[in-house]
């Protein structure tokens, strides 16, 4: 057999004293790591197949299992690390582009962790969210500040289409196909229960989920998969996906293996055919083309639905955003380069784009300087990991945030980063029925509701600490932030003072 350049990344440690050979691990591992050996009368494992998804660890009734990182080592040096070396081996073997899933694992700075939040002391009181009203309701959409009155002098209150959310958190685009039916149902039901929205991604909308339309953002991406009039009208808003933080500048690629049954019907493409969305929208080669698409979508939906334009955070994001704000779009979604993906070329995921914190700060500031900040709302995503990240994003100027990886974690995802394999043991990133059924939406949606509810409680606690009792008073309130360990340049871009100032 050929030389094996890839030593097992993990080791399966089974505590023989605790293992009762119930074979749950065997039945639950789609990667076929475990099996019961009748001769030896015990469980044995093939760790080369282990992706460290912890399904077996989580379900083992006697806690007999643990997965550890193999300490088998290459002769590394600071320049040539194991990851780098194995990637070279892999490409030398395959001659192909490296593919990865989820957000980049590289150690780029996480600015959220270099920002600190303020709290009131003495000169003004902090507010106790348990005793005082604490408001997190937001409206997304263009704000017209032209006051008009009727003949009786009353305000004319018709406004451009707005999205009313009870929490400043939305579930961002994950297509049906890249994730399972049950994952989608969980997201849709959670969005409904929370009074927020989820996003179809570029996979179209399964007919069963039209009933969640009021809590649905329908996406129009470069592949136009699953896009038709009813689809556009089904949602509360339409999102034009220009780019994705994890893979700016390239389209999506869903392997044919995942294009089965309902997925192919929903996407309106043949079963088994790879779903490859082009890098650009071929009807958008310039900003004025975007302007036209925005308006054709508005025409198609009688100007009743806000249009979101989603872009990846790239170098001149501020200028791009300014262009979009003048294109008729109601909302701009910016996706930072630490954002997740079902599958992306590794090099692009790990090297293209900029952090969302800097992009957000630059965009918000730029739009204000141009006096067009209220033309659009800003949603930011690309690794929002906690309620503190949410608060910091809003203080920097975001109206709301998109979460996806955190949502998947709530559904059971263990970030094993092998979504592209389609063998998700947690029933999320798979279309295999026996795996899909592992995610019971009854449980999934509840866990999502719990997560966002918990975050919202924490957001209110932090707001109260700042002496703020309504979320709009936190938006763009950069005085509530201080930087820690940041250079003057970074502070300038973020528009915050350093801690101690």
């Amino acid at each position, binding site marked *: 057999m050929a030389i094996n350049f890839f030593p097992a990344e993990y080791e399966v440690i089974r505590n023989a004293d605790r293992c009762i050979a119930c074979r749950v691990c065997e039945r639950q591992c789609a990667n076929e790591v475990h099996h019961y050996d009748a001769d030896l009368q015990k469980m044995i494992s093939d760790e080369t197949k282990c992706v460290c998804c912890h399904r077996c660890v989580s379900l083992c009734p006697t806690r007999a299992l643990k997965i550890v990182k193999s300490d088998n080592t290459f002769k590394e040096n600071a320049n040539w690390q194991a990851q780098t070396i194995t990637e070279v081996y892999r490409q030398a073997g395959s001659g192909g582009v490296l593919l990865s899933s989820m957000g980049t694992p590289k150690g780029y700075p996480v600015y959220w962790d270099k920002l600190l939040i303020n709290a009131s002391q003495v000169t003004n009181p902090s507010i106790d969210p348990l005793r005082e009203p604490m408001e997190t309701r937001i409206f997304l959409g263009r704000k017209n500040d032209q006051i008009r009155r009727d003949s009786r002098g009353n305000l004319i209150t018709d406004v451009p289409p707005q999205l009313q959310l009870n929490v400043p958190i939305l579930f961002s685009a994950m297509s049906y196909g890249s994730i399972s039916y049950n994952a989608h149902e969980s997201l849709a039901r959670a969005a409904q229960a929370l009074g927020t929205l989820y996003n179809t991604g570029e996979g179209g909308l399964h007919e069963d989920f039209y009933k969640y339309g009021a809590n649905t953002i329908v996406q129009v991406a470069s592949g136009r998969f699953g896009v038709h009039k009813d689809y556009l009208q089904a949602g509360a808003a339409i999102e034009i996906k220009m780019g994705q933080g994890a893979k700016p500048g390239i389209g999506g690629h869903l392997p044919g293996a995942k294009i089965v049954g309902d997925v192919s019907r929903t996407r309106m493409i043949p079963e088994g055919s790879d779903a490859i969305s082009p890098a650009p929208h071929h009807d958008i080669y310039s900003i004025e083309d975007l302007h036209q698409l925005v308006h054709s979508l508005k025409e198609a939906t009688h100007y009743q639905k806000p249009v979101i334009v989603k872009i990846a955070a790239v170098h001149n994001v501020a200028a791009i955003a300014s262009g979009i704000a003048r294109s008729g779009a109601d909302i701009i979604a910016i996706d930072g380069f630490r954002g997740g993906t079902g599958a992306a070329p590794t090099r692009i995921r790990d090297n293209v784009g900029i952090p969302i914190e800097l992009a957000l700060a630059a965009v918000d500031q730029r739009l204000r300087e141009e006096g067009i900040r209220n033309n659009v709302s800003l949603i930011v995503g690309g690794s929002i990991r906690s309620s503190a990240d949410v608060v910091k994003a809003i203080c920097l100027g975001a109206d709301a945030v998109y979460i996806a990886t955190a949502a998947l974690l709530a559904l059971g995802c263990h970030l094993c980063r092998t979504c592209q394999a389609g063998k998700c043991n947690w029933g999320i990133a798979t279309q295999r029925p026996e795996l899909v059924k592992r995610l*019971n939406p*009854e*449980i999934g949606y509840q866990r999502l509701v719990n997560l966002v509810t918990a975050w919202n409680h924490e957001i209110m606690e932090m707001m109260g600490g700042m002496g703020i009792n309504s979320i709009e008073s936190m938006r763009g309130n950069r005085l509530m932030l201080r930087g820690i360990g940041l250079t003057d340049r970074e502070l300038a871009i973020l528009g915050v003072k350093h801690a101690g100032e």
Partner: protein
Amino acid sequence: MKRIYVEEKWCLGCHLCEYNCAFANSGMDDMVKALKDKPIRPRIQIEEGKGVNFAVSCRHCDEPLCVKACISGALSKKDGVIVCDRDQCVGCYTCILVCPYGCILPTEEGPVQKCELCMNSRPGKPACVEGCPNRAIVYEER
């Protein structure tokens, strides 16, 4: 009354219910101690088929044929729960012959055993239900 219901749509066929049942009825305080290196004798059984799995345990029928057919009076219904007095049972297996669900199980020592909703060990919290990772077995009014 509350009963155990099975949502076969969500059953993964992981068999955890069988192990949790065997443990809950073992009278022991540790699953390893209770089950290691022993054949398990659960009162709930998984049936496995092509893409379909489900757990089966006593339905606690309103018209319990097993109780009516029991020749020894060992089976009886107490507060809606069908229980077996294993001291009284002589192991004639008439109940096994009449249970439409196949939920009464023979044992090596003779007397039959069946699901008694964990009323002795953990009332109101059947082990199979509590331990099901996918809510495929529920305990509720319907």
